[in-house]
């Protein structure tokens, strides 16, 4: 899906060029646009205009009080000045370790650094296991590992809330059985040191989708390549790095981009698991959660919009950097495209 984005952006035609078109191709254009029109309309109405509106809001002082919108006033860069000073947003790295209020941006980055490698390696490892030639019943395993992905989010939070309960949860019972002292059992979601692992465990449960995508990538590697490597006497490590990895690099790239974009917007899990309070000790006040609360709880439209545009810019820059690096390590077989 991403290969399209990795190539040079095609140009929009000039109006003069359209005017010069033959009537037949002009009809084709008209029909094509007609079929595209539901999306074109939807894109403008539900994506493009709201984005612009968010930008405009960030220069106003809009609030909602009791369901009534305040009269907007242009305030210039006031909201952005506030964003720079806001310790809860914490977008200035020099204040990250001196401020008393934990920076929600730092929390987001810390969690992303912790969760991202697992989010790539766990599905890749599982897919490699599923693709092992000696594994019997691959189809059944594949479905069963996928299944938790379709469990409703709230239900999975409840399941893991039970599993990770300090006293009655099975995880702590197993730890107790393995000889962990009762006092040192983790408090999981209520423990500053264990809350991120708790989230990651809940996240790993839903790796089925990424696993299937990676598995499909692995199965698409031509077997002749492996045969050739065998003839050359390559060991399995060399085979992985020189054949498997380059061949599935587009799939890894796809998951990497989606994971990073997702992690920077992470907030639903802390919203439900820790009630969106930032407990324990402010460790779960993620940036997007703070944004959510600024708008939905404190009804500050303009400052929420400012937070939103900053997040958008951060994600945009990261995505652009990722795409720029892609040409060094992502390999698209058969570069010619239609």
């Amino acid at each position: 899906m991403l290969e399209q984005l990795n190539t040079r952006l095609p140009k929009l035609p000039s109006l003069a060029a359209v005017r010069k078109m033959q009537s037949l191709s002009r009809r084709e254009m008209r029909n094509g646009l007609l079929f595209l029109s539901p999306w074109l309309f939807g894109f403008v109405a539900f994506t493009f205009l709201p984005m612009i509106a968010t930008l405009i809001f960030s220069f106003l002082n809009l609030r909602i009080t009791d369901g009534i919108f305040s009269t907007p006033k242009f305030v210039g860069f006031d909201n952005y000045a506030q964003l720079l000073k806001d310790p809860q947003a914490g977008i200035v790295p020099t204040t990250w370790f001196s401020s008393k209020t934990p920076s929600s941006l730092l929390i987001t980055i810390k969690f992303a650094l912790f969760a991202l490698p697992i989010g790539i390696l766990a599905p890749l490892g599982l897919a490699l296991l599923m693709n092992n030639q000696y594994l019997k019943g691959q189809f059944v395993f594949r479905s069963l590992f996928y299944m938790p992905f379709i469990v409703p989010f709230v239900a999975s939070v409840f399941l893991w809330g039970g599993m990770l309960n300090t006293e009655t949860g099975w995880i702590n019972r197993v730890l107790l059985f393995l000889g962990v002292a009762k006092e040192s059992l983790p408090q999981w979601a209520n423990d500053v040191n264990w809350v991120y692992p708790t989230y990651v465990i809940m996240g790993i449960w839903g790796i089925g989708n990424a696993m299937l995508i990676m598995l499909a990538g692995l199965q698409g590697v031509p077997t002749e390549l492996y045969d050739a490597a065998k003839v050359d006497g390559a060991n399995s490590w060399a085979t992985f790095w020189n054949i498997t990895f380059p061949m599935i690099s587009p799939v890894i790239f796809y998951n990497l981009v989606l994971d990073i974009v997702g992690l920077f917007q992470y907030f639903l899990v802390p919203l439900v698991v820790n009630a969106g309070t930032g407990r324990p000790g402010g460790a779960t006040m993620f940036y997007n959660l703070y944004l959510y609360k600024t708008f939905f709880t404190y009804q500050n439209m303009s400052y929420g919009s400012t937070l939103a545009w900053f997040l958008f810019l951060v994600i945009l820059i990261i995505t652009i950097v990722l795409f720029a690096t892609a040409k060094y390590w992502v390999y698209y077989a058969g570069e010619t495209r239609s």
Partner: protein
Amino acid sequence: MNKKIRTGINSTFITLVVLSLLVVFLSPFAFMMVTSLKTREQISVVGAPIWPAAQPKYTYNDKEVDVFTVPMSKCAGFDANSTATKNLAITKKGRQESTFVDPDDLARGEFVCQVSWRALDRPWIFSPSWQNYVEVWKTIPNGYWRLLTNTTFYAVVTMIGTVISCILVAFGFARFRFPGRDFLFIVLISTIFLPGAVTIIPTYSFWQKLGLVGTWYPLIVPHFFANAYNVFLFRQYFMTLPRELDESAMMDGASPLRILWSIIIPQSYPVIIAVVVFHIVFAWNDYFGPLIYLSTARQNWPISVALSSFNGIYGSQPQLIQAGALLALILPVILFFVAQRFFVQGIVITGVEK
């Protein structure tokens, strides 16, 4: 022969490793089922078994009495060297000696054992409490039946909108050549990576201004305007279909809509089914949308929102929470097993195809 044995050992080893991983991976389901069948009493007792069980009572002379596990060597009239234990109903509790009857041997009547009843254990017998499901069914906000119809309504209506709009748009991308098409396609794909935060505030405010927060409109309407994932899925599939049929139909003067309806769609059932099941699972599980737009309109709640409110109401009753979770996940799981072939196909197209 040697090679065969080695393959056999490798197979057994790998399969066992994956199997044990799977057991761990699926253990939350076991936890959910087991917990959902426990009684509230069992959960509050320290040292109660892990499976759903109850401590039996016995009705003796119209009175409910507890049952204890008694070492028979302490009882009058039994072998003093015996190591056997029996589950007996207590009729008189005492510190030094207690009186029991044997429910399996009533003819013997009451007899005395030299035991303090406090030192005895009460036995647990397997006893699933199906009552929990009845209770959840009735007490979940709106009642389960209403949640089911609400959620189904949302899933089906938006599914229709998604399928129709995405097929139209994908057909436009797959079968028409015009300048600017590839640019628009890239814009479409880019929306997958657009953070929702940058559009949600004006969108929500817009629906609020219209007075439609609390209704289904904000959740349903956008689905009639196509989305990148499903357009991509349909487009990839349509591009694999041979063009000859379309072209000959066009020669015969068929309109594009006619070609889509009579030639493309009949060849595309696998991908249509994939989108349908994906979408139904998505809509069934959708939590954030209904949470922000419907949280004040309780009568419209889908199952996800009702379930999350359940946590606050029954925080101290894990058996009801787990029963509620099971009632929420059972339908998507069934749908998945019925249609898994199409699921897998759809995922492969989005992730791997260019």
